[in-house]
């Protein structure tokens, strides 16, 4: 590898064992990528030092104190190191449990305590506690062209495509190492030549609702897998919430990390700009038949129309989505046979609290929760058999992870299910 003097100094241990082990991991990772240099990163988002009961138990008898998990797991080091404060702007994504509602989420006191101590550890090391999959809704909005090192596939695709900043889909180990060193492999989406479109998707239908954008995203990810789609036929820019649902879906059914919408997203003012020197490898049409097929894939697990759980907020809800839920509830109470949980960031819940939305949801029988979601926290109301979701991403993961059925539809279909305990959604 071609290392700078500073990188060599860190790798040689001249800045301490913590940075040395971080550089060793980054070098192994860069070599795996066949990449010979690093880029400086000024914005890292990960889950540093986050401890689960499994990890706490696994490392129980290993030597060391609070730095154990970061040393052995995050840095994949066989030696315990003294973990220094981070050296670059770093934030903590979703993890652990809502500190006010961990009992409701079914966490054991032990798991809640691990969540608290992991958070304190991150604070001690200079890491900002955002506790969300939507850092861009909680105060971390990278600049165009900024080299980031982000985890969370739905945030990565937003960062690249909507904001025009640059990040690959990093993992826990690489982001933790980047926080200590400010370095990440200069590979993939950090480089101009790797950001051009590879596949064309032509939308033959108007794409309007959040559900429409989620379905289109799911179709696109399934079609192009880990490549870079260029969307044509889209009239009018989607709003932030639609971008969020589209990207999360495309990063779940496939591995899309960057997309372009011609005339809309920052690196695609024209089709020529979006594709650069590439000729599209494949062209896909998204019409009524593809829309119907996507809807059926997303509802593949659902049979029973009795719904006992409605989950909103994947990715974490924007305040407008919580407001929308309040409007749809219209002062009514949800069914006794159904729970309603809306997940968001602490930053957005503070806004929802201030606007009175949290109280409206609570009065209707629902809850606004933070830090996690049902898939991340493996958290379902007791006895859940059938869920209703307005997120293509959540419906992709939750049934497989938790062994339940799940319906996918509009936010309104979901709120109706919460009010009646019955699924009446359909493709409209």
């Amino acid at each position, binding site marked *: 590898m071609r290392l700078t003097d500073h990188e060599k100094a860190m790798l040689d241990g001249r800045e301490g064992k913590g940075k040395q082990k971080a550089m*060793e*991991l980054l*070098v*192994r*990772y860069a*070599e*795996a*990528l*066949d990449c010979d240099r690093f880029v400086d990163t000024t914005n890292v988002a990960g*889950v540093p030092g986050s401890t689960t009961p*499994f*990890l706490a138990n*696994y490392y129980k008898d290993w030597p060391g104190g609070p730095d154990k998990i970061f040393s052995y*797991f995050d840095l*994949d080091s*066989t030696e315990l190191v003294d973990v220094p404060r981070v050296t670059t702007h770093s934030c903590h994504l979703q993890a652990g449990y809502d500190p006010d509602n961990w009992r409701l989420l079914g966490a054991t006191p032990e798991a809640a305590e691990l969540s608290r101590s992991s958070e304190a550890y991150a604070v001690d090391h200079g890491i900002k506690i955002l506790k969300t999959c939507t850092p861009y809704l909680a105060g971390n909005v990278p600049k165009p062209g900024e080299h980031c090192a*982000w*985890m*969370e*596939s739905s945030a*990565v695709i937003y960062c690249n495509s909507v904001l025009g900043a640059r990040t*690959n*889909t*990093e*993992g*826990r*180990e*690489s982001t933790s190492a980047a926080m200590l060193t400010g370095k990440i*492999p200069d*590979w*993939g989406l950090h480089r101009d030549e790797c950001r051009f479109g590879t596949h064309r998707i032509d939308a033959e239908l108007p794409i309007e609702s959040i559900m429409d954008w989620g379905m289109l995203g799911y179709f696109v*990810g399934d079609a192009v*897998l*880990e490549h870079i789609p260029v969307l044509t036929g889209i009239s009018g820019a989607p709003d932030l919430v639609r971008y969020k649902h589209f990207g999360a879906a495309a*990063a*779940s*059914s*496939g*591995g899309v990390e960057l997309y372009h919408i011609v005339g809309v997203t920052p690196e695609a003012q024209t089709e020529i700009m979006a594709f650069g020197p590439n000729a599209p490898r494949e062209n896909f049409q998204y019409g009524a038949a593809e829309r119907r097929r996507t809807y059926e*894939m997303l509802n*593949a*697990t659902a049979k029973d129309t009795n719904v006992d759980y409605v989950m909103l907020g994947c990715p974490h809800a924007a305040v407008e989505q919580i407001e929308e839920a309040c409007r749809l509830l219209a002062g009514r109470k949800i069914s006794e046979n159904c729970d309603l949980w809306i997940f968001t960031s602490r930053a957005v819940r503070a806004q929802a609290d201030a606007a009175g939305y949290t109280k409206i949801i609570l009065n209707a029988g629902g809850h606004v929760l933070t830090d996690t979601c049902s*898939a991340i926290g493996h958290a379902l109301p007791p006895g859940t058999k059938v869920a209703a979701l307005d997120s293509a991403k959540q419906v*992709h*993961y939750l*049934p*497989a*992870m938790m062994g339940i059925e799940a319906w996918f539809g509009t936010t309104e279909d979901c709120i109706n299910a919460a009010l009646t305990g019955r699924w009446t959604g359909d493709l409209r």
Partner: protein
Amino acid sequence: MKKTPVVLRGRKVVGGVAEGEALVTRETISGWGGINPMQGTVIETRHELRGQSFKDKVLVFRGAKGSSGWSVIFHTARLAGTAPKAMVFNEMTTKVALGAVVMRIPSVTDLDRDPLDVIETGDWVKVDGDTGTVEVTKKSQIEIVGASSARDSSVDQKQRSRAKLAPTGP
């Protein structure tokens, strides 16, 4: 009858040598939400490998998709003792690269022939990460050899699968 392994040549992702039975899919694999690291099984709805175990297998696949928790989940599989023995894949991404590094298993990509055309589930595959070579003994040949020598090949397979450990550092 003499076995004649097919040899594919590619590039090292992670060094070390290991061998085992192949588990092959043309589909991409999700880590977080796509596998159960405690069981070592694929759980994704509608995945062709759903319910199948990759523990101690040589995983031959297109590449990684989905969540950024890919490395954490496969890292956890290593700790839980359910990781594959080696990996052979086509599409390089940061997810699969970091996952291979923290699983510490021999891994190879950029092969001179598409491994998905050559390797089938059940073939015996030896992955040499250091030299970037993949040796494939077809299942049909294993069966012929098995019929003429040892009918019960489980002991033989256990011995053969005692692979060298991958290096733990760079």
